[in-house]
């Protein structure tokens, strides 16, 4: 007969060859490969301190006739550790979901059972088809001070374990991140970026349950973020961007009144508008024909004075000029 046998990692396992006597001549195989006689004690197969690699199909055959006398599938594994459970409402006020996983694999099948109690009332957590380790509950009541208690039990052939979460209705409210974040330069504004986004599609009623938002941005070349909290609207104009520098921007959301902030949205990149460079021939001509009284500011005719994106000061406009324009300006001053 064939069946499944579960054993813990490190256990000593003895397999009997069905109803065969101890002194019968037998051959044991694992997954079709003969097992060395050193593992036998009479007709018994002895496996000491089993490990995961010893899982497999074990078969016992009578010595001369090679009749199959016993077969078993050995699965080596571990009892479950305390599962990790998380519950969250990303679609308030409709309901919440709980999801779980084991911190380490058991290598054998596990069964999960979840119970949800609100006060004295048992609630049904409907299992999701995908992912399998998740279930959802519809709120039957809103604005309750009575806590929810969720208990998850995990069982396998080698043992069981459980964990319990207790929480308030408001505490687990956490929207999904904002969607469709877009950042665009503003024409003729070298220090502005226009950012817009949408409410997460999973948030069912943003009109009655409005979200507020947190925007963070920084130039790629710096590590420090700037933050802006916005109590309404789904757009914002950054007005202090460094000219010509590429920015990374993210947005998070939170219910206006309860719960916690969402994770950050997918990051978007944008660079503020910059002026197109002037034609070089024109600059060279201006340089040759104007006065040289401010020669300290003159550059070779074919060279731009500064990098396009240079920042003059933290509060000042970023400026990029050509040699010709500077010389022209000073010429006017000294006339």
């Amino acid at each position, binding site marked *: 007969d064939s069946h499944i046998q579960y054993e813990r990692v490190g256990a000593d396992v003895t397999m009997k060859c069905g109803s065969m006597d101890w002194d019968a001549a037998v051959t044991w195989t694992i997954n079709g490969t003969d097992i060395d006689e050193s593992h036998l004690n009479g007709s018994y197969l002895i496996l000491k301190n089993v490990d995961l690699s010893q899982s497999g199909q074990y078969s016992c055959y009578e010595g001369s006739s090679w009749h199959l006398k016993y077969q078993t599938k050995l699965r080596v594994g571990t009892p479950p550790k305390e599962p990790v459970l998380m519950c969250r409402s990303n679609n308030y*006020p409709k309901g919440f979901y709980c999801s779980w996983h084991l911190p380490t694999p058991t290598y054998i099948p596990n069964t999960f059972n979840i119970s949800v109690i609100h006060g004295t009332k048992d609630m049904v957590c409907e299992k999701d088809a995908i992912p399998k380790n998740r279930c959802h509950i519809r709120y*039957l*009541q*809103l*604005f*309750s*001070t*009575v*806590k929810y208690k969720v208990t998850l039990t995990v069982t396998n052939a080698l043992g069981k374990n459980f964990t319990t979460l207790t929480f308030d209705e*408001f505490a687990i409210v956490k929207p999904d991140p904002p969607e469709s974040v877009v950042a665009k330069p503003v024409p003729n504004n070298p220090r502005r970026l226009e950012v817009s986004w949408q409410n997460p599609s999973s948030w069912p009623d943003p*009109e*009655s*349950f*409005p979200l507020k938002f947190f925007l963070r941005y920084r130039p790629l070349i710096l590590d420090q973020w700037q933050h802006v909290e916005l109590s309404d609207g789904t757009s914002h104009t950054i007005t202090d961007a460094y000219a010509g520098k590429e920015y990374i921007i993210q947005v998070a959301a939170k219910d206006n*009144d*309860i719960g916690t902030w969402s994770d950050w949205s997918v990051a978007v990149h944008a660079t503020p508008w910059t002026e197109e460079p002037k034609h070089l021939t024109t600059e060279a001509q201006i340089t040759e024909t104007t006065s040289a009284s401010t020669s300290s500011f003159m550059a070779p005719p074919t060279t731009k004075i500064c990098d396009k994106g240079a920042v003059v000061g933290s509060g000042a406009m970023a400026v990029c000029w050509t040699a010709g324009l500077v010389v022209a300006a000073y010429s006017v001053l000294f006339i």
Partner: protein
Amino acid sequence: MATADSSSTALRRRDLCSRGIRLAGKMRTDVVNLLDAYVEQQGLDASASVAAVEGVPLAAVERWDEQTGTQRLLENLAAYRAFRALLAQMLEEQREQLGEADAGLGRALAAVLLQVSAFAYHLEELLRLESRGIPVEEGDGLPPPPRLSLFEQKLRGLGVLRELSQWATRSVRDLRQLAKPSPATDLAESP
């Protein structure tokens, strides 16, 4: 004329709802702060479960999204009238217990009581706007509440403030529903 009246009523309703939302939001913030201070100064465990206390209106509601505008206003009004009486009682007990020793907590309680009273009045304004009769306030002629031990008073106070915090959150949501320009507000005058 009827159109002008109804549009001015709609504007007035929206204005009252907006102000009500701000009042309720401020009240909620102050109640949450008061709750923290109350737990600390009364030596209570913030996570302690408090059984439903008689006379404290529960904010918990089923099928909240199906409520009519009138239901929302009436339930809110009944709740805040009850909280007005409960907070007044808490204030009196506070003064009896501690005298001047805990003046800060007493002042915070009094400030919240004032806001609760103001909000109740605001709700009455909304009901008047909809030509709904203001329910007569119950409580006259009722026997005085049973005398509780000091610890029971503290626990009841915790229950009152927790439930008030939930109500303040609910009221913001209720008024947002009322402010929506749709038939679902169900505040149109009776034919």
